[in-house]
């Protein structure tokens, strides 16, 4: 029951900062889905795919706390230096309904980079991403990194290139599919599933993964989205002995390890399980470590 590893957990907020970031622009990507571009050069230089930031409207007491959002991508200035951070958000509750009303020039509070992010294995030839709904957001930057189109972090980290990157993307219907041109530009082979069959496969996104696992040599799977989907992906990859990482979405009050609200049950080496904080020990975990049944 000892939180093994937690005392050795990396103190990620050591490398994080708090900023007032000006909104550069916003645009609508799909139904209820927007991209917001923030001017945050320091953050843009530091952050890597799969890490996240906390966003908050300054001076407001309602919503009170920050909200976690994954890095979508970073954008360079004219001199080729990272200058902006892109976040893609789905309208959900208090903060996300306020955000579209904020315009360019207004400021948001942002803190990050937070969390561990994805660390792709060194021998991944064919990487497959399985995304459900807004769970697609971490994969544009990761695809760009794996296909050698962009580098992230300071100093820019070195990631061994994949020869193929496939995105399996599931949504309720076609109108919710967001950022497809970005995934194309990132070098992804895109496969789509919709619940209503309005585009791509009529059914589960995990059906697309099953087909790939059957027909292709898949070396590594990364997944983000609804928990049932991720648990299914974890089970399917475990059966095939394919390495799999999940990026978990838990409610977070602080994002920096201070509140112990963001926990998930993680299996312990010595047997049993214990709650771990997704904000500092995740949000990315090896799929086999999650005790899905708890």
């Amino acid at each position: 029951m000892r939180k093994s590893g937690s005392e050795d957990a990396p103190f990620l907020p050591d490398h994080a900062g708090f900023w007032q970031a000006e909104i550069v622009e916003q645009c609508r990507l799909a139904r209820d889905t927007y991209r917001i571009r923030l001017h945050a050069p320091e953050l843009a230089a530091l952050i890597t795919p799969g890490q996240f930031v906390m966003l908050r409207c300054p001076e407001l007491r309602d919503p009170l706390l920050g909200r976690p959002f994954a890095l979508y991508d970073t954008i360079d200035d004219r001199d080729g230096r990272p200058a902006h951070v892109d976040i893609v958000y789905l309208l959900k509750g208090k903060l996300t309904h306020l955000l579209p009303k904020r315009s360019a020039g207004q400021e948001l509070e942002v803190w990050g980079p937070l969390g561990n992010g994805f660390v792709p294995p060194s021998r991944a030839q064919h990487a497959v991403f399985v995304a459900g709904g807004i769970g697609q957001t971490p994969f544009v930057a990761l695809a760009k990194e794996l296909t050698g189109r962009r580098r992230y972090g300071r100093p820019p980290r070195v990631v061994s290139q994949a020869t193929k990157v496939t995105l399996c993307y599931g949504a309720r219907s076609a109108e919710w599919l967001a950022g497809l041109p970005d995934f194309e530009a990132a070098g992804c082979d895109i496969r789509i599933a919709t619940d209503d069959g309005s585009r791509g496969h009529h059914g589960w996104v995990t059906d697309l993964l099953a087909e790939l696992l059957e027909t292709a040599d898949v070396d590594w799977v990364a997944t983000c989205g609804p928990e049932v989907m991720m648990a299914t992906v974890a089970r399917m990859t475990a059966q095939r002995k394919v390495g799999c990482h999940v990026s978990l979405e838990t409610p977070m009050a602080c994002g920096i390890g201070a509140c112990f609200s963001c926990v998930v049950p993680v299996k312990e080496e010595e047997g049993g399980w214990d709650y771990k904080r997704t904000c500092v020990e995740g949000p990315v975990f090896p799929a086999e470590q999650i005790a899905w049944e708890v």
Partner: protein
Amino acid sequence: MMETTTDPPAVDLTVSIGSLSLANPVLVASGTFGYARELAGLVDFSLLGGILPKTITREPRKGNPPPRTAETTAGLLNAIGLDNDGLEHFLTHRLPYLASLPTSLIVSIAGRSIEEFTEMAGELDGAAGVDALELNISCPNVSGGVDYGVSPARCEELLRQVRSRCHLPLIAKLTPNVTRVDEMARAAEAGGADAVSLINTVSALGVDWRRCRSLLGNGLGGLSGPSIKPIALRCVWQAAQAVSIPVIGIGGISSLDDAMEFAVCGASAIQVGTANYYDPTLAQRIAASLPAAVAELGAHKWMDVVGKLQMP
């Protein structure tokens, strides 16, 4: 609002809690600041009056199932359930770092029985770097322990027993979830507490009517944040009227004005809680702004503004 352009006036900010002298009255509340190490990159600990790490129990506790927090209007519901690795792990893994920080360290403990409390207090008594103990007899999210916070007789007995086993200054952390908070404060004082701190979270419930479910994995939770400040001010004022030991004010503090409101209601020190989650440097900025605010009331000492409230 909190920026001062002129040099801060010379104001004495020190506060005594029993034998402990705090450099200034601004503390960070237990459970809202991790074990301080998490905040190291963001906060200048030397500017704080003191740190209260997350409550520890004798044995490790897994804590409550998620979701453990949910935001409400200007507030936060939580039911963490005292998730911690236990006293032994604290002593070996957390205390060395905490003890090295350039500020006072007040360790928060919770027990299910008088024996657990006294045993922990006894072990922490000799531990290097521990300046005081806060007895958490007010956590609404676990069974046991909170009994000492709702029964004056049991509260007094607990303090008496812990006092007999431990020389450190003792702070009793009280719950607002009682009819007479002044009686609880009096009982803590009678038992030998050097101070009382209040309030812990307000027992509360949030629901999702569409799913007919509670917002929290534990069902009930505790409310914190700006929405509880008026309740906390009332409790602090009542406690301060009832006892002669220092009262430490907690509840919804998110600005310098909030801190000063607690001071005039009778709080000799304050703890910043939920606000740490979105503004970890708030406490140090409040501390830096206090001299000007104290001077605004024509005082030269923080303690001279404490309890200045004139009630009709």
